[in-house]
């Protein structure tokens, strides 16, 4: 019987001919990732509880300073220092200091560190992002990461796989973010719990790698173990010249098994939001148009790559953020920031009255640089909006794509970007 991509990667990792959903395996890990919140506990568990003195392979681990860095207080400074000292002591090859990397889930793909056919774990729930590059990637906790650091292997349960087929093409203004919000709205935050999400279909051919990463990034919001996509010309072009290792793509067999197949007509997907306070609280944009906004946040590993910023800038150019609203823009990586600067996007953002920050997870997790207060309403391009995620548990967070976010910052309320584009730009 045939296997799908997820099963093939897990079978190879475990050194087995074939695997079935439900099998428990001990599998070799090709690449791992930890950051300033997860390396400190993982390194401590590795040393004190597991008795390991060195990392299984210092060339197969990335350590990224992104969650609370640059440090916001002495406690986060201590975590940053622990992470830094440990990475140095272990000789970690892919260590990304503040100002060098950015947000882990953008940095690893853009540096060609997570590749087709590989088995990857990250001590962060959004590690599922990498699956857009045709690999099995999943988020784990600190003890799991410590196990990988010590042994280079980890136990896995082979997941059941849900297959998604996207027909036709997304319409004007509608993005990968809208599509995945729609999918999660249908699945619910529990709908893919512990399962694999395999995304396929005609619509994906027209979605670039950034959009694909947005989609796999949010697999965890449906509870999934991983999100995975096929290898195609887009993948090949993205990895050309940047892949750090040779790689072997995988594809699903024609007779591969799926627990369920979902079909979506991409052409019928509308601009979408997730309403407070859950990523599955789907609504078409039209239903929430007019909601007044205190803050708009364009940032995170979901939607602040260079294409996202370019599209946001196209709306903001020559326009001003509404006086009762603030707009924060946090680039997804230092490389993204560099490109934005080179292309003149920063000037557009500053002229519009937006604030521009260093690349960090920051406001997405209510960490720093944009924490919401009680009763405030925010439209955010991030991935989750559970109570308290971005600050006070009684702050209200809506999720959208970055163009809707930029347009809504100008209007001071949730709005269709086409409405803003109808207005004459003001001279700045």
């Amino acid at each position, binding site marked *: 019987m045939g296997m799908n991509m997820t099963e093939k990667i897990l079978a190879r990792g475990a050194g087995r001919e074939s695997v079935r959903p439900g099998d*428990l395996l001990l599998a070799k890990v090709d690449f791992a990732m930890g950051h300033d*919140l*997860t390396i*400190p*506990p993982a390194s*401590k*568990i590795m040393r004190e*509880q*597991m*008795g*390991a003195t*060195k990392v*299984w*392979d210092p060339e197969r681990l990335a350590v990224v300073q992104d*969650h*609370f860095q640059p440090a916001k*207080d002495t*406690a*986060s400074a201590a*975590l940053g220092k622990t992470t830094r000292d440990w990475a140095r002591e272990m000789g970690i090859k892919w260590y990304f200091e503040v100002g060098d990397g950015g947000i882990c889930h953008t940095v690893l793909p853009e540096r060609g560190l997570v590749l087709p056919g590989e088995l990857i774990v990250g*001590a*962060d*729930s959004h*590690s599922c992002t990498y699956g857009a590059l045709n690999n099995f990637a999943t*988020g*784990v*906790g*600190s*003890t*799991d990461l*410590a*196990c990988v650091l*010590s*042994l280079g292997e980890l*136990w896995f*349960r082979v997941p059941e796989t849900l297959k998604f087929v996207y027909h036709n093409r997304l319409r004007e203004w509608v993005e990968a973010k809208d599509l995945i919000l729609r999918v999660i709205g249908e699945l619910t*935050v*529990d709908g893919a*719990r*512990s399962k694999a999400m395999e995304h396929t279909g005609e619509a994906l051919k027209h979605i670039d790698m950034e959009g694909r990463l947005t989609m796999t990034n949010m697999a*965890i919001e449906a*509870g999934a*173990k991983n999100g995975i996509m096929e290898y195609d010309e887009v993948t090949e072009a993205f990895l050309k010249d940047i892949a750090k290792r040779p790689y072997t793509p995988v594809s699903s067999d024609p007779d591969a098994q799926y627990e369920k197949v979902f079909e979506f007509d991409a052409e019928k997907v509308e601009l979408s939001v997730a309403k407070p306070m*859950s990523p599955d609280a789907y609504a078409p944009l039209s239903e929430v148009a007019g909601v007044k906004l205190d803050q708009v946040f364009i940032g995170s590993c979901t939607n602040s790559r260079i294409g996202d910023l370019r599209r946001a800038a196209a709306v903001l150019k020559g326009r001003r953020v509404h006086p009762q609203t603030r707009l924060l823009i946090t680039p997804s990586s230092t490389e993204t920031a560099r490109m934005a600067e080179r292309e003149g996007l920063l000037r557009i953002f500053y002229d519009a009255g937006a604030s521009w920050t260093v690349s960090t997870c920051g406001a997405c*997790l*209510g*960490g720093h640089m944009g*924490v919401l207060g009680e009763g405030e309403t925010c439209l955010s391009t991030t991935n*989750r909006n*559970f*109570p*308290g*995620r971005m600050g006070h*548990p*009684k702050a209200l967070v809506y999720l959208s794509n970055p163009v809707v976010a930029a347009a809504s910052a100008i209007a001071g309320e949730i709005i269709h970007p086409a409405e803003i584009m109808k207005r004459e730009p003001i001279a700045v």
Partner: protein
Amino acid sequence: MTAPLVLRGNTWKFGDNVDTDQIIPARYAIYSLDEKKLGEHAMEDVPDNEGWSKKVTAGDILVAGSNFGCGSSREIAPVAIRSAGISAVIADSFARIFFRNSINIGFPILQSPQAAEAIREGDQLEVDLEEGVIKNLTQGDEYQAEAFPEFMTELIHMGGLAPWVRKRLEEKRAAGLLR
């Protein structure tokens, strides 16, 4: 096994899809190595649940609905709940990473839709971890938790993943397989 085999405690009841940002908000993640502090803030961002951890008596049992612990990968979620004094979590279902993290740190969790539905806040429970039997002493009822696969039972018996890794490392060292 590190935890006692039979637990007895009163119930704290929560709903479906309680995510890790509600269990332990990210603003406390900077105290990830301070278990006491984490315990003080456990379940703090569940709406209208401020001050919860002060009301917990050591040994109490948390009962929740489906997909408990969804969201982030933070292992401090089960750590915070344990540190607040909770001896075990019973749920209709667990989110994947919370499930793994709990097993890995040797924190008892039991999956039983029947128990999650029937148990009410304040009910006194007796939980036999070995047999997976949950007795509701208040209602005079009994529920069976779902059995774990053999490997997970082995991990639970060893007290979590760390002792298992330690053993495997020693075996590899002895066999000359480590770099």
